[in-house]
């Protein structure tokens, strides 16, 4: 097994443990954060704050590099323009997130915990992503 696969596996695992410890993998906690008008649980603001604080410092280490420590090319997004797709996609995602309390990472973690409801969400999410691919191919031809 090559080292890029090992590091992807371990990183995914640490990411998943972070989602579990923080409570982000629990839809009830996510919805309690999104419910500003109800009994508001501000915890997830701290999750985001801590993640970004570590990210801001850590990503500086990558600045100026074009290869990763394992020798892989550094692939950072290059788009800078704000377009309709970004904004509509973002707005739409929030609606889906607010309906079930799941975003993609936590849904996969909950699926790993054996939750049937998470499996239904993930299958539907994959169908949505597949639909996107079909629409994109149609657009290209």
């Amino acid at each position, binding site marked *: 097994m090559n080292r*890029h696969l090992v590091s992807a596996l371990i990183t*995914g*695992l640490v990411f*998943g*443990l*972070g*989602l*579990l410890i*923080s*409570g*982000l993998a629990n*839809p*009830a906690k996510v*919805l*309690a954060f*999104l*419910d*500003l008008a109800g*009994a*508001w*649980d*501000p*915890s997830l603001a701290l999750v*985001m704050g*801590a993640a*970004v604080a570590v990210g801001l*410092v*850590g*990503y500086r*280490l*990558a600045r100026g590099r074009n290869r*990763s*420590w*394992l020798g892989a090319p550094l*692939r950072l997004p290059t*788009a800078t323009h704000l377009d309709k*797709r*970004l*904004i509509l996609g*973002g*707005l*739409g*995602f*929030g*609606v*889906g*997130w*607010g309906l*079930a*309390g799941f*975003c*993609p990472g936590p849904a*996969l973690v*909950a699926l*790993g915990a054996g939750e049937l409801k998470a499996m*239904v*969400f993930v299958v*539907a999410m994959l*169908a949505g992503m597949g639909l*996107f691919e079909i629409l994109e191919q149609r657009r290209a031809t």
Partner: protein
Amino acid sequence: MTVDWNAFTPLSALAGGALIGLAAVAFLLLNGRIAGISGIVGGLLRPQAGDIGWRLAFVAGLLLAPMIWTLALAAPELTIAANYPMLVIAGLIVGISTRYGSGCTSGHGVCGISRLSPRSLVATLCFMATGFATVYVVRHLLGS
């Protein structure tokens, strides 16, 4: 607005958040990639040679996390209130929207903001706004 102080878990939130940030940074420094879950999963549906293994490995890590967790700790609390039709609708919307918007909470909310990307900041403001609005409509206007 009333804060539910009994539900507030600042320490685990900060610790978990730091771990998420650490994983995101490690993924960039080791694999040279953005740890955006919707992009990693979505790329599997556009398979290209040599571009599948690392995606599957990362997803496998996410799926294994609860199993590793239960080796040391009690089963994590996961309460999924949404019914099945709602989960299907929400899943479809999340799947298609995150691909159109090029990211989700991880890719835009954590990685993108850490890179100070204006696109990610705008996307994050968009999904936070509709996330708050959706829960408000469902819980307080429709009252379900």
